[in-house]
């Protein structure tokens, strides 16, 4: 094991980066669920923020243990998803995407100004006491204990993978797939479209909330700036570049896209540029994403051919 982690660290993937990779894999899975039901929702960065802040506030200000705290964060994200999903999921396509971006930004700004809002309420109500500082504005919450461990994340990814596999073959999953392909026809085959869309949205929100809880206890500090539009699109990029034709695509995408800039780090100031170029190449030449089953079949075939070729070379050499 030590040997493997040394090797990974030598290409820029130290333990922190690997942990982050798995956090992002969880986030990528969270958005896969809505995409699977044909919903182009970018809301998960907002749910991630909620999961993150709720859990961190619990561990920091109320001395909760880590596990219950992140579970509460997850549930909080799910609860907030209910009133958001009901109106918003009536929208489709780009309209849904933009509305959910609106939600993400509103959430970020609310967190950013939470203390100010509380203070305003205190003065309006003529309360004597000093208003509490909870989210601490743009500086965020600092000194958070690092509780997120790689093992937890791997276990979570395994559980979520099991969930996805089962989901695909369930009545629930089939309904989502039908909704994705033709919402109206799905409805007239007896599928309650509103129910299933919202259910997928809420479950996705909970996964994102969980991912947020993990990410909040990863780097000692959380700031509202890390949960905006950019993050929303990043999460989408993980799952799209990973490929949404299979459940493992988003995992691969989350892992690979988080690792990529770290691996490219030796390029110094060119890191960002090459990172962008690689993204462009991926999206242009891997239509099904990294997790495309067809891609892996052809990789296996090519690998087989190479192995054959080498073996032939060896036998030829041995013969000579």
């Amino acid at each position, binding site marked *: 094991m030590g040997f493997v982690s040394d090797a990974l660290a030598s290409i820029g993937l130290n333990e922190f980066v690997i942990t982050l990779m798995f956090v992002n894999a969880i986030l990528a899975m969270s958005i896969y669920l809505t995409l699977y039901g044909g919903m182009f929702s970018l809301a998960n960065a907002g749910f991630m923020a909620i999961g993150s802040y709720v859990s961190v506030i619990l561990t920091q200000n109320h001395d909760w243990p880590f596990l219950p705290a992140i579970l509460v964060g997850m549930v909080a994200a799910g609860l907030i998803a209910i009133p958001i999903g009901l109106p918003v999921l009536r929208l489709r396509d780009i309209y849904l995407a933009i509305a959910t971006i609106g939600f993400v930004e509103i959430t970020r700004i609310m967190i950013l100004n939470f203390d100010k809002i509380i203070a305003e309420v205190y003065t309006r109500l003529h309360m004597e006491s000093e208003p509490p500082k909870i989210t601490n504005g743009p500086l965020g919450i600092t000194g958070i204990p690092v509780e997120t461990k790689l093992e937890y994340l791997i276990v979570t990814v395994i559980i979520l993978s*099991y*969930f996805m596999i*089962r*989901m695909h*073959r*369930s*009545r*629930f*999953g*089939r*309904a989502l*797939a*039908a909704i994705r*392909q*033709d919402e*109206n*026809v*799905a*409805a*007239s*085959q*007896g*599928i*309650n*479209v*509103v129910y299933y869309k919202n*259910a997928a949205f809420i479950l996705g929100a909970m996964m994102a909330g969980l991912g947020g809880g993990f990410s909040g206890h990863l780097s000692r500090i959380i700031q509202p700036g890390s949960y905006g539009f950019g993050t929303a699109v990043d999460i989408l990029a993980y799952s799209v570049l990973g490929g949404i034709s299979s459940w493992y695509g988003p995992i691969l995408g989350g892992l690979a896209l988080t690792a990529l800039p770290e691996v490219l780090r030796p390029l110094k100031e060119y890191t960002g540029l090459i990172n962008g170029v690689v993204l462009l190449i991926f999206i242009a030449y891997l239509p099904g994403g990294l997790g495309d089953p067809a891609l892996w079949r052809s990789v296996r075939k090519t690998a087989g051919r190479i192995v054959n070729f080498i073996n032939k070379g060896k036998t030829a050499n041995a013969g000579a």
Partner: protein
Amino acid sequence: MLVLKHVYRQFGGLMALQNIAMHIPAGQIVGLIGPNGAGKTTLINCMTGLDHPTAGEIEFGGTPIQKKPAHRITALGMARTYQNIRLFGEMTVLENLVVAQHGLGKANLIDSLIQTPRHRRENERLRENGLQLLKRFHLEQNAAVLAGNLPYGDQRRLEMARALATNPKLILLDEPTAGMNPVETAELGEQILRMKAEGKTLMVVEHDMSLIAQVCDEIYVLNFGQIIAHGTHQEIKNNPVVVEAYLGQEEGE
């Protein structure tokens, strides 16, 4: 079984349906004919909840359904096919029929996560039903083919099978023979009569008058959103208003 009273549907300035009164009696096959753009598909959409009437009432087995969402109406026992085929193209033929039986299943996500016996039994049952339906429509050898890759005629038949899969009392067929050859059309006529024999009620929208004549007990004629005639095939055929409507269309084209 299905009763429509004073049904209107307006799209902006266009009156797609005007004061429609219809009655589809249980156990019968009702034909609905009319020139292109008459409003036939709009009428089916309003019946099935994909669209809703601007005004008027629709009763299905005594229940008012004009405001109900599509899945509720399906649960009450109505099913349909589409004029422009709308299968779930990324699913296999059998999966199309399994997902179509959604309302007949009960398993929830948790059942499938922990693989309860209910989930397993139900999956078995739905697949079995699906296979039965495939046999009935001679599609069994295509069970594992993606529905989007089926030949055209097979897609039409799969649509019928999918409508039947919801176990409906009333089936609405929107131009089921469009694009079919005479042999396929004749076979489809047989299938329609078989459904009737099993006690289903049907409404068939068709341009093919021979099929209408073959299967329908009574016929409604729609033109510019209005019912202009109603009666048996004989009565309709000799009705000057109907002849006029169709002639008018031919001159226009």
